């Protein structure tokens, strides 16, 4: 590697406050550990993202492809000031969210990918991401856009976000919205939950390995369709 | 205020709303058109947070009320903390856009 050119291409990184892990009891009664992961975890995460590229339903393919690129870019030092938070149940990865610090004051929300559906995992992780930007990274606002109608309903309507006129979100696409501290403070009690600290044993299990379900299981969990016919 | 027209049976006096061509009470076919009068009393309500396509709001409060002249109707509640039996004042305001057109409906606010 030509380190001289690499030094030019590799953006300087900002020091970012860590996201303190939390634990959420899901509808099933199982506990989901929500924690920040490190760059070294990216190859593992990509194994879970890859199957989603084949799922056009609900724009999973677009979200998956872009998340794949963002994580890869982070891993190989091409995306700056990036963070990634995951949800794990019994060690298994159930969802991923990511974003980055655009400036000191503005957070750029990237993607939310729920690998297990129907348990509000996307809602919990999106809230964790907003919490990270506004409370731990101490930013003033987060810029958010949606690629799917479901995302639009979930984020723009459920949080009551403000439409930003005349600016551009890094993900391009349609007009985008902003989560300000005021909106966050109003929405937080009904949208952001979790207990800290995570009990030691639970945290140790989550940190020991990010387990990834096999591709068929991931497809089944996302599509929710039984592809066999029962007699 | 009213665009809401109920039908009072000329035979038995029963107030029908929405419209029926035979009275819900006595099956007679003659009606006098009446509008809700006076304040309304809240019979039940629900804050709806999963609204259908076309209503881009997080939540809206709907309720069923009864007016002093017995007209019972659903309406949109513009009240912070509703309670059963509370008194409400009606108005006729836009409640939805259907096919690009604003549709007016019964809207209820706390009576003073």
């Amino acid at each position, binding site marked *: 590697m030509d380190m001289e050119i690499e030094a030019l291409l590799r953006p300087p990184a900002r020091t970012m406050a860590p996201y303190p892990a939390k634990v959420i009891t*899901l509808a099933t*009664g199982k506990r989901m550990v929500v924690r920040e992961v490190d760059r070294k975890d990216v190859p593992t995460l990509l194994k879970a993202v890859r199957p989603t590229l084949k799922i056009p339903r609900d724009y999973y393919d677009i979200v998956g492809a872009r998340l794949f690129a963002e994580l890869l870019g982070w891993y190989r030092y091409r995306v700056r000031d990036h963070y990634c938070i995951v949800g794990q149940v019994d060690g298994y990865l159930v969802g991923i969210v990511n974003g980055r610090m655009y400036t000191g004051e503005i957070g750029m929300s990237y993607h939310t990918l729920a690998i297990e559906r129907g348990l509000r995992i996307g809602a919990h992780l999106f809230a964790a991401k907003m919490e990270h930007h506004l409370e731990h990274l101490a930013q003033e606002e987060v810029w958010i856009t949606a690629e799917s109608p479901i995302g639009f309903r979930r984020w723009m309507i459920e949080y009551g976000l403000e439409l930003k006129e005349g600016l551009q979100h890094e993900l391009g696409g349609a007009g985008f919205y902003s989560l300000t501290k005021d909106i966050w403070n109003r929405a937080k009690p*009904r949208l952001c939950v979790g207990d800290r600290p995570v009990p030691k044993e639970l945290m140790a299990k989550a940190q020991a390995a990010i387990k990834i379900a096999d591709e068929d299981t991931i497809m089944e969990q996302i599509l929710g369709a039984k592809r066999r016919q*029962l007699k | 205020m009213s665009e809401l027209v109920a039908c009072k049976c000329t035979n038995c006096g029963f107030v029908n709303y929405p419209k029926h061509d035979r009275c819900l009470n006595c099956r007679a076919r003659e009606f006098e058109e009446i509008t809700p009068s006076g304040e309304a009393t809240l019979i039940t309500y629900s*804050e*709806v947070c999963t609204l*259908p396509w076309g209503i881009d709001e997080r939540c809206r409060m709907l309720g069923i009320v009864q007016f002093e002249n017995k007209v019972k109707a*659903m309406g949109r509640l513009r009240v912070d903390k509703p309670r059963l039996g509370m008194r409400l004042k009606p108005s006729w305001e836009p409640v939805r856009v259907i096919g690009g057109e604003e549709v007016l409906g019964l809207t209820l606010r706390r009576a003073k």
Partner: protein
Amino acid sequence: MRKVAIIGVGMIPFGRRDEDSLVDMLSYAALNAMDDAGVGERPIDAVYVGNMGAGLFNHQSAVASALVDRLNLFPAAADTVENGPASGGSAIKNGVLAVASGHSDLVLVAGGEKMREVIGPRATDIVATMTHPQAEYIYGATLPTMAGLFTRLYMKECGVTSEHLARVAIKNHRNGLLNPYAHIHALITMEGILKSPHAVVNNPIVADPIRLYDCCPVSDGAAACLLCPAEMVGEFGKPAIVVAGFGQATDTHTLQEREDPTDLKAVRIAAQKALEMAQLKPKDIDVAELHDAFTILEIAESEHAGFFKKGAGAKALDEGQTEIGGKLPINPSGGLKARGHPLGATGVAQVVELVWQLRGEAGERQVKGAEKGFSLNFGGFGNNVVSFVLRRE
């Protein structure tokens, strides 16, 4: 009237079935029912298809004709029956009448709906088209709205609490786990959906006081059954399950017009008619499939159908009477809550479940020794209700 028997039943797993069209699903369920009965090449005289919204969900009409074509059932008579979420029950009722009258011998009834072709809020809007156009729909009223308005009053007057509602959901999810055809295969806990502070996100308000887990999922699916005169049962290989009674009744379109909005009059009358026709009392029923599109409905219907006194349904639930193994198991299939609620399929799926139960073919969710079953299919918000009593003979 001739006595009518059900000689074949079939279903496909409910859920998201992106790969199947509505007619695909109806066809698979119908083939399963035909194979179950072993009808072979015998001609089918008439086909009734229960479907509520193919025109709106799938841009398709004349579904019964399409099914006949798909299965080469020509020249069978074919009708699509639309009665909102009770379309399936109405389709069976029409099939029963066709056989009972002597007009038809072998009748196929299928019910199906493909709802996941559209996104959630659109499905909500399509289902809401059954509300009153001027008096309800314009306000954004949905079926969950009607359930919310009803639940608030029912809680106040009949001693039902949020915990009771959650208990219905937990029970039916647990039953659904034993049903390979169920849409939802997930155990839920009181902690996860109500008691934990985290439940505010897990189980958000849909239409106060009802929450997400008080509502059935939006599902694709189909179910089918084959009817014939009881005297023909010997020609097929299955035990005789007869339609001992059926009832149907209607009530006002809007909730506000009911003298007592907590009184589900159409449920009372439909259930009473079905039981009277079968010459049975509620206490004679061994297993019931009720229309729990919302958890409150399982409790309210169990009371209005006469299984418990009004106000005693929640207590019966608390005591475990409605569990598999209880005094009156309700929704061993998981109900609409866990099996799913593809509108037109539901009434048929309820009857399919009862037939499996009465034959002793319900696997892990089998109600021991069940001989008499009851179903209730609830259309609109209780404005058109169809009920059946089945008996093993």
